[in-house]
């Protein structure tokens, strides 16, 4: 059952990713394909016992980040990709070859080297478990991310505002 679900989500994720990269006509549809990938990844996270991360994945990636992409596409009113698909066949061919090569290298690299999966402790991946780790062992990184977010907010406003007074 879990294997079937995993295969289904994996298939959806790959299809969504490919649809996003290959869709050269409609940016909104590309973004929606990305949502399919992200939600499928959320499902896979649940199957891998990372419950909190799964929910945050769906809330932040699918629920906020891609919506912001859609917002910008609608704000700029890009009805279609005005410049159409790239004419440079060479770039595309090279890109595809690079992608396949990357996957091949990964397969070679990982073959027989992945360690066996360990048995899980109780409550693994729940909000208590992750929260305890986040607010004790990783407190400093957690606090530093707030600075990063602040910098991002200021940067986005500076970049996007028409004129700074």
């Amino acid at each position, binding site marked *: 059952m879990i294997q079937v679900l995993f295969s289904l989500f994996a298939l959806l994720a*790959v299809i969504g990713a490919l649809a*996003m990269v290959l869709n050269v006509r409609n940016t909104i549809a590309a973004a929606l394909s*990305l949502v399919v990938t992200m939600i499928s990844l959320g499902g896979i996270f649940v199957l891998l016992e990372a419950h909190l991360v799964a929910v945050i994945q769906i809330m932040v990636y699918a629920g906020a980040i891609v919506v912001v992409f859609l917002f910008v596409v609608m704000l700029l009113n890009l009805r279609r990709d005005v410049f159409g698909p790239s004419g440079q066949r060479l770039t595309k061919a090279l890109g595809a070859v690079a992608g396949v090569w990357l996957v091949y290298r*990964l397969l070679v690299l990982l073959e027989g080297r992945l360690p066996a999966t360990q048995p899980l402790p109780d409550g693994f991946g729940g909000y208590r478990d992750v929260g305890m780790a986040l607010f004790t*062992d990783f407190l400093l990184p957690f606090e530093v991310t707030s600075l990063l977010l602040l910098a991002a*907010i200021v940067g986005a406003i500076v970049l996007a505002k028409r004129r700074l007074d």
Partner: protein
Amino acid sequence: MDLAHQAVLLSGVLFAIGTVGALVRRNIIVILMSIELMLNAVNLAFVAFSRIWAHVDGQIFVLMVIVVAAAEVAVGLGIVIALFRNRESINVEDASLLKW
């Protein structure tokens, strides 16, 4: 085959698709989305290894990556808007000059 091992492979495939997208596409918004896809693939690898070692640290890293992704989108799309305002285009080739 183990579920977590399959997840590592899936993460590699998704990362490759993301890389190709970022290299080949000229629509800057799609390029940004491809980068998001790559980050997602990395998240999947983190979660898979967290499952393999039965250790929660990998999931913390996912949360950090998500924060970085959010920051990156905010700044990246800010740049897209500024670019569109100046060039009336979201084609990266229209922004190939360092100065205009």
